[in-house]
């Protein structure tokens, strides 16, 4: 997977940039492959969803290398105003989750801070012609002029991809939604905000069940919030949620209707030698993801990625440092708000590797088997179409070698918060502010 002697490496497959001049609305806020990997959905701060589709590699189009091209674009959420609280509700798409495909159409859930929507994306490549009551322009025909009846015929047309909202799940969250997760039963899904987790049925929009509620009776006693939640990939009764205190709770919906009491509690004892002023903030978990096997889960906190065995609650089985050199910079990162950045993480299809983002458009990949890790950069300058990505190195002290970059030269405005890995192949999608990069691992 990582550049070795056999000229293997990650090559740029597709680069998409949102508009020419980056504006706040063009910042990509979520990236997600569908179950087959043929579609890649992205959401941005402006409430838009852009779906990319993989081109079929075929003999008739030898130049196509299986690139991803824009398939559909639609406005999922609009800014709203809550008049009661005098607050604007941002249209930023926080998460997109695909539903497993059941027919020709594709379905996905997209959510902003308050409302979840189920979108149907369908193709139309035929059009009916020869209507009786209207002519080809669409104008109504004068009924007295109709002397004969004809049967409309379906004729091929240019492919049109339509997105239509099929369900709107609203008014169930007082706090800001941070996660949605589709259940393995394909009928239900959960949505989590800072203090509560709700269970929905995909068909029912006017009701949801509250399954976790950690709101204290007295808000002054609030000490932690929910930061992420996910259903187990195979066991439809099991889900996990992470907290701002760095703990993960696994809950079984069979045990009780309200899962305030966890079945398992995952927490690593704090290392007292590394305790610092900002320890509490950096221990907050920003993302939790089950492995495809369902045996492990991965959590991301500010400086590291941890892999947990579901059978062992006392500590993670693996800890990977993402950018430990930032530990001494926490005060500056607090000043520029970077310490609050919420990085995501993802598994590859076989669970042998994990990936997460960092600053300066760097992203990190860890091979769990070989214990090797690599830092790569997603930027236009470094991504020539046929050249493979060169590993990058951050110089943490002493003399800076050639090609190394010093910590102080890192651009903290260029952060990679969202990454996704194709479910089966070695294709990764990396969102760098308003740019999307899709890389493929290929042998030269």
């Amino acid at each position, binding site marked *: 997977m990582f550049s070795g002697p056999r000229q293997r490496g990650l090559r740029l497959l597709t680069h998409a940039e949102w508009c020419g001049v980056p504006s706040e609305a063009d910042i990509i806020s979520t990236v997600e492959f569908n179950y087959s990997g043929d579609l890649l959905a992205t959401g941005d701060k402006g409430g838009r969803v852009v779906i990319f589709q993989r081109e079929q590699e075929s003999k008739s189009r030898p130049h196509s290398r299986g690139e991803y091209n824009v398939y559909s674009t639609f406005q999922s959420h609009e800014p709203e105003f809550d008049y*009661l*609280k*005098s*607050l*604007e*509700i*941002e249209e930023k798409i926080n998460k997109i989750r695909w539903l497993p495909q059941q027919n020709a159409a594709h379905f996905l859930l997209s959510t902003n*801070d308050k409302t979840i929507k189920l979108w149907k994306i369908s193709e139309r490549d035929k059009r009916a012609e020869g209507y009786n009551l209207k002519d080809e322009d669409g104008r109504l025909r004068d009924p007295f002029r109709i002397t004969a009846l004809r049967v409309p015929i379906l004729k091929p047309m240019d492919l049109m991809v339509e997105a239509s909202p099929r369900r709107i799940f609203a008014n169930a969250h*007082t*706090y*800001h939604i941070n996660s949605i997760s589709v259940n393995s039963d394909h009928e239900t899904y959960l949505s989590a905000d*800072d*203090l509560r987790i709700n269970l929905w049925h995909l068909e029912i929009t006017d009701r949801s069940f*509250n399954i976790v*509620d950690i709101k204290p*009776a*007295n*808000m*002054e006693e*609030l*000490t*932690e*919030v929910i*930061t992420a939640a996910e259903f187990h990939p195979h066991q439809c009764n099991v889900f996990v949620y992470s907290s*701002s205190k760095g703990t993960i709770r696994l809950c079984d919906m069979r045990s009780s209707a309200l899962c305030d009491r966890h079945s398992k509690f995952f927490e690593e004892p704090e290392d*007292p030698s590394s*305790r*610092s*002023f*900002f320890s*509490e*903030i950096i221990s*907050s978990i920003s993302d939790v993801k089950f492995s495809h096997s369902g045996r492990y889960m991965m959590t991301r906190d500010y400086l590291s990625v941890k892999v947990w065995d579901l059978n062992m609650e006392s500590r993670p089985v693996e800890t990977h440092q993402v950018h*430990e*050199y930032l*530990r*001494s*910079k*926490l*005060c*500056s990162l*607090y*000043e520029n*708000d970077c310490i*609050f950045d919420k990085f995501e993480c993802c598994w590859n299809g076989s669970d042998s590797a994990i990936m997460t983002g960092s600053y300066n458009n760097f992203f990190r990949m860890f091979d769990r088997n070989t214990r090797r890790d690599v830092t790569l950069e997603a930027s236009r300058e470094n991504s020539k179409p046929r050249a493979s990505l060169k590993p990058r190195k951050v*110089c*943490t*002290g*002493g003399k800076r070698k050639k090609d190394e970059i*010093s*910590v*102080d030269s890192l651009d903290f405005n260029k952060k990679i918060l969202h990454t996704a890995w194709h479910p089966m192949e070695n294709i990764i999608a990396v969102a760098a502010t308003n740019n999307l990069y899709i890389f493929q691992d290929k042998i030269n």
Partner: protein
Amino acid sequence: MEVQKEAQRIMTLSVWKMYHSRMQRGGLRLHRSLQLSLVMRSARELYLSAKVEALDLETPSTPTRCPDPRLHPPREAEVPAACVPPDGEPLSPEPMDTQEDEEEASPRAAETLARCSAHPARVGRKRRSSSLSNGVDAGLVPSKKARLEEKEEAEDASSEVPDRLLPPPAQAEGAFPNLARVLQRSFSGLLNRGPTAPPTAPPARDAKPVCRPADPVLSVLVRAVVAF
């Protein structure tokens, strides 16, 4: 003292961030508010323990204090001992160029000292409850008036209807004017460094070595979170 200044700077910064986060689109975010209040609390503890240390160094044998001989010597011994390992650490994990040393030195100092202040802070808390009752910076100690206000607000907050059924009532608007007032008061307290009102250490403080319950800035900040 540098640690004190740094802690104060972080407190001020946190309060500013807290206030500023109200202006952003989407309103106050609960997680962010919580994180800011955590940093505020840590900074405050650091500030107070640094202040206590400074005062102890200035007036080593003040009769008005209630000196605890058990605490005093061990604390003085602990502080240098605890500080040595972090300071002795090679600075190679600090990948800074020398020209930026000055900028980074104070946060680093704060963090290094924060590590060893974990000890004196714990010990210092015990001292604090006794020393503060003797007229240390009163801006940090809640006055009776503030406590009465808090009590009223606490009652308002807890009377919220369970918001599974209803959106929270608009009394949240009432929290913000109070926040501004308390921020003003606590700022002047931090800056004046002189006792302005007879302090009253609430008895609950002695019971727990935890910096809760009556902390006007912190509790109002957390209450501002109830604005949802």
